């Protein structure tokens, strides 16, 4: 690292460096007005949610107050209270934080598994690929929702970690398949053959030669999946088979609407959470679509 010192004119280097895939995608994203607005809205929501959740006292929020059951929005409770007299706004913040964090965790875990499996299967091919693809084909034809619900119901000591694990066990397959297909195509290109003849070990070829060429696809896929995972999580929680009660999610607030009286008359309990889920998913999707268009355009230009 010390030798870096005698690099001539670092300013020049920076100016000569052509933009990386990420910065090109970022530029395209910012140019897309809808995506930019989505990005701003999402950032604001996340800032508020994560910022406020630091200051909010979770104990205080989940404390049952029978004197204020189902009270409509007021100065004290901005979004009213639920059947236990608990502040809906506070739960909204905590729920949004949990939903987003857990959605992100699932996305990253499945992304990592999908990446490793897809790269290995695509690069090495042969029987490894065959076995992996059979497993993926099998998982993809399973009735996902029902099995997750069954697992959630029968797992002993159920908690957030087990929920993330159960979800990840099913959701890595799509990514692995995508990455595999792309790796397979990339492997046939001569730069991989060149690396082999230059004596570069396989793991380095996979990580430093092929992986950078998949980065835009991975980013697009992870973004769109993040939205999907938040949706699935809150949906399962809505049904009562998502996050455990100790970890309220946006789905928890929405699930109060299973009571027709709440659905019909106490809109402040469930509607804000529903709309927040909707807005977050729309924003992430718009960002993902814009990234996708940018990645496709890059591909067309070669």
């Amino acid at each position, binding site marked *: 690292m010390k030798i870096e010192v005698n690099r001539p004119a670092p300013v020049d280097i920076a100016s000569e460096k052509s933009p990386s895939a990420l910065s090109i995608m970022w530029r395209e994203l910012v140019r897309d007005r809808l995506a930019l607005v989505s990005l701003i809205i999402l950032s604001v929501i996340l800032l508020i949610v994560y910022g406020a959740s630091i200051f909010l006292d979770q104990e205080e929020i989940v404390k049952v107050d029978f004197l204020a059951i189902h009270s409509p929005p007021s100065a004290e409770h901005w979004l009213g209270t639920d059947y236990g007299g608990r502040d809906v706004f506070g739960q909204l913040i905590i729920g949004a934080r949990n939903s987003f964090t857990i959605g992100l965790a699932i996305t990253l875990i499945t992304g990592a598994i999908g990446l490793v499996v897809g790269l290995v299967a695509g690069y090495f091919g042969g029987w490894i690929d065959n076995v992996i693809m059979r497993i993926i084909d099998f998982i993809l034809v399973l009735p996902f929702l029902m*099995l997750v619900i069954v697992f959630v119901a029968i797992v002993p000591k159920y908690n957030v970690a087990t929920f993330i694990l159960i979800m990840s066990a099913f959701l890595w397959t799509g990514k692995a398949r995508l990455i595999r297909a792309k790796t397979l195509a990339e492997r046939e290109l001569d730069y991989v053959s060149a690396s082999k003849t230059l004596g570069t070990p396989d793991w380095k070829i996979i990580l430093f030669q092929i992986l950078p060429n998949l980065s835009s696809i991975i980013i697009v896929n992870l973004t769109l999946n993040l939205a999907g995972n938040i949706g699935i999580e809150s949906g399962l929680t809505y049904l009562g088979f998502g996050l455990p009660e100790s970890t309220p999610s946006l789905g928890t607030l929405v699930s109060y609407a299973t009571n027709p009286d709440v659905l019909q008359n106490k809109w402040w309990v469930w509607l804000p959470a529903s709309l927040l889920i909707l807005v977050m998913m729309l924003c992430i999707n718009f960002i993902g679509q814009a990234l996708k268009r940018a990645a496709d355009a890059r591909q067309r230009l070669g």
Partner: protein
Amino acid sequence: MLKFILRRILIMIPQLFLLSVLIFLLAKAMPGDALTGQLAANPKMDPQTLEEMREKLGLNDPVHIQYIRWVKNMLQGDLGLSYTHQQPVTDLLAGRVGNTVLLSAAILVLTYLIAIPLGVVSGRWTNTWADKLIVGYSYIGYATPLFIFALIMLFVFGFHLGWFPTGGSVDIQVEEGTLAYYLSKLNHLMLPALSGALINTVVTIQYLRSEIIDTKVKDFVKTARAKGVPERQIYWRHILRNSFLPIAAFLGYEITGLIGGSVFLESIYSYPGLGQLFLQSIMQRDYSVVTALVMISGVATLVGTLLSDIILSAVDPRIRIE
């Protein structure tokens, strides 16, 4: 072609086997067994008789023997006994399956009724305001979770405006078989089916749109146009016909989505179908019903994928080269 179908079916056999093993193991892992049902009906059974019955039912046999017996029974239509309902699971399901099939079919019909005109308009007149509106709808629909949309639909059209009933599959007062009965059924069906279809349709709209845009510039279309074939005819004869077959083929893949969707829709609209039964059973720990339902949807998904793969390979021979 026949070879492809046979090979495709051959692939399905190990999948079916694995599925059954997985579900069997899950069933074993669930608390309770075939005796739990008996016990609920007759709580005063002494441990001696209980053990005898366990032995008689083969619950003390090695696992693989139990598995084989379980598969055999299933193939003969014996799915065990539901202890909350105190009746054979098969009968229980038979009473509910009609509603779920009806709901799913309605969703599919509505999906295509919406998707085809919208997709065609959007693909034919690209970049008009109509197209932009449709594309916007498809983006929003793609991002919206079904359960949120269904809840809002129920809130607005069921409770707020009161246009549709808010639960059940039919009015209890009407007599079965009368016209009023069928109308009531349809009335109860509309809102859940529409909720499902409006979300489900966006994928087909997007597919149709991009397919039409792609075919529009193909040579054979240009030739037809150069020959003076009227635009309408070009669309019907050449473009749409090419796009419809794959869409029809996707039907099988839809099954997974429909099963998942019915769980949400039936729960939100208290619609008495298999999805609602599934949730109820799992909450009441009625695991023989749960096992049966998971197995049935697993098989349905497998068969659906099989059919779609086969139809698609007939439409597009490239898929056959695996």
